[in-house]
């Protein structure tokens, strides 16, 4: 082993605090340090992930208090897989925003990268921690940096979007803390594995109440309908890369938390059906809302919510194939949606209102950006041979194995809706005449690199889906092995 899981939290947190200090001496460092940190974490994540697929989970005891008393971090195939995706997305967001708006001031860059580091710390912490109160703290770290990043631009209506996010977020945190305290008052422990092993002792009514509180609280962060009122505004008003970071990092962490509570901690029989129902409602409402949007980023935001609904349905199937499909959809969403946000925000760069109609005729002005956007659009609706096809196929196969034919029909119908609104934009890009005199903005070199890397990954996974399915199978197995999770945490010793 080359490192331990605690570095995923310690290093970005330290970097976030050091950025303003080192920035006083050397101004360029505020842009460079986050990149070095994220690159190192990515190498570490890949190393640890290949270690745990062979040797089983790593449980790290913090501060010398063995579980169930102290806080512990769990890096297994499932959480490690998500950490790898999140750190990778963080690196791409950093690269994209390295010279984001070349006129960006030192002051603004310092705040932006500091908050980005905090966002990564919080999200990775949510995934790694093995303690429910610690998870609450990380959710708050993510939330507060998310509010600040949403309000980053002073000119637009970003403060309004951010206030909305903050209101829903702080109500979520109250409900979350209430749910945690109900568990603590009944079981006297905060360690996830310990809670999971004692869960059968809890009064069923209180168990149901605290589970529902958890679902509502995490549903706000995971953009589940009807708790997602903040999401379209936050995506539309935040800077482009921040929208990508929300889609690629924050939402993944919230969905992870929801899944960890449903699968490992609570043993409620109706929980899977609840996931399917809220997932389906989210999916249908979001896709129908997306087709009515006139602003490009709002449309992408609703599409993002819809994808999360699909992930929840897939987790709700409750079989190994279902979990495999859900993880595959999450992986693809983490690759495709940032590409759409990155290229989309360049397509409407100069327009004030960021309307979908502003992309008319962009195919001639900015061919490469348009092609990359189209690639993302094709991939997310699930056209072969792109990445999204395989995840949708594995989802349909998992649903078919469980005889959920009604769900298959519904998902295919919704996919048609999805196809319609993405093809509408693509059609406008290539076949409409340009009505305004706004010129296209040339993406920066870094932005091109990021978009092309994402495009190549979409094609790569599309042609060789086996390259990732091995990791996905390991991750799905480790989520199902509840007793191994509990055993490995409770027998962990101080290394």
């Amino acid at each position: 082993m080359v490192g331990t899981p605690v570095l995923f939290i310690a290093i970005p947190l330290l970097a976030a605090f050091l950025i303003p200090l080192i920035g006083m001496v050397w101004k360029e460092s505020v842009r460079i340090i986050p990149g070095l940190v994220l690159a190192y974490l990515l190498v570490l994540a890949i190393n640890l992930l290949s270690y745990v697929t062979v040797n089983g989970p790593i449980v790290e005891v913090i501060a010398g208090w063995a579980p169930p008393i102290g806080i512990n971090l769990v890096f297994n195939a499932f959480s490690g897989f998500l950490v790898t995706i999140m750190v990778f997305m963080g690196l791409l967001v950093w690269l994209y925003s390295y010279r984001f708006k070349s006129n960006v001031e030192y002051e603004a860059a310092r705040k932006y990268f500091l908050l980005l580091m905090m966002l990564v710390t919080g999200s990775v912490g949510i995934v790694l921690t093995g303690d429910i109160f610690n998870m609450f703290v990380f959710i708050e770290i993510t939330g507060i940096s998310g509010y600040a990043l949403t309000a980053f631009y002073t000119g637009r209506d970003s403060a309004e979007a951010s206030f909305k996010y903050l209101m829903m977020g702080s109500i979520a945190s109250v409900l979350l803390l209430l749910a945690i305290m109900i568990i603590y008052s009944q079981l006297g422990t905060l360690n996830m594995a310990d809670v999971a092993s004692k869960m059968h002792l809890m009064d069923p009514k209180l168990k149901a109440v605290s589970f529902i509180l958890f679902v509502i609280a995490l549903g706000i962060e995971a953009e589940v309908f009807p708790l997602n009122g903040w999401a379209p505004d936050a995506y539309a008003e935040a800077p482009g890369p921040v929208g990508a970071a929300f889609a690629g990092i924050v939402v993944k962490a919230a969905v992870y938390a929801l899944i960890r509570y449903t699968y490992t901690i609570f043993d409620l029989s109706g929980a899977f059906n609840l996931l399917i129902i809220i997932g389906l409602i989210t999916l249908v409402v979001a896709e129908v809302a997306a087709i009515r949007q006139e602003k490009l980023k709002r449309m992408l935001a609703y599409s993002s919510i819809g994808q999360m609904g699909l992930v929840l349905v897939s987790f709700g199937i409750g079989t190994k194939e279902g979990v495999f499909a859900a993880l595959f959809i999450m992986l693809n969403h983490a690759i495709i949606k940032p590409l759409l946000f990155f290229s989309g925000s360049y397509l409407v760069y100069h327009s004030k209102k960021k309307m979908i109609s502003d992309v008319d005729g962009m195919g001639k002005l900015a061919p490469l950006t348009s092609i990359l956007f189209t690639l993302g659009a094709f991939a997310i609706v699930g056209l072969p041979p792109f990445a999204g096809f395989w995840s949708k196929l594995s989802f349909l196969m998992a649903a078919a194995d469980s005889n959920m034919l009604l769900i298959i029909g519904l998902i295919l119908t919704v996919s048609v809706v999805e196809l319609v609104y993405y093809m509408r934009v693509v059609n406008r890009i290539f076949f409409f005449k340009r009505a305004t005199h706004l010129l296209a903005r040339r993406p920066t070199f870094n932005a091109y690199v990021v978009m092309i890397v994402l495009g190549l990954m979409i094609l790569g996974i599309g042609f060789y889906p086996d390259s990732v399915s091995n990791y996905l199978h390991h991750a799905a197995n480790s989520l199902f092995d509840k007793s191994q999770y509990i055993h490995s945490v409770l027998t962990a010793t101080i290394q």
Partner: protein
Amino acid sequence: MDSTYFQYLDYAVYGTAVLVMLTGLYAALVKRSLLKIVIGLSIVDSGLNLLIVTLGYLKGGTAPIFSAGYDGTQTMVDPIPQALVLTAIVIGFGVTAVALSLVIRLWRHHHTLYIDEIKNLKW
């Protein structure tokens, strides 16, 4: 007076905590002024903190500190909820600070604090 009345009184603090939380929730969801919403959110936090401390309380318990005068016979209150409340207070403070700075931004932008008049995004 019979002591059963006082046993019910033991639960009064739970009722108070829940009442404080509901008051704050009412303010946060019904009031139209941004400042009152922020105050409401912070009242909800206070009510929750009160509830958490109450959960860890034992009747006749002392402070959970092993000091020279402690003889091992007295009961101690549960220290973990107190530690959690400390964390929750700090987080609540941070959220309130961010919320107030956003309110200042909104005031500068719109010159009003009433959310009915700030409608560029749909509420």
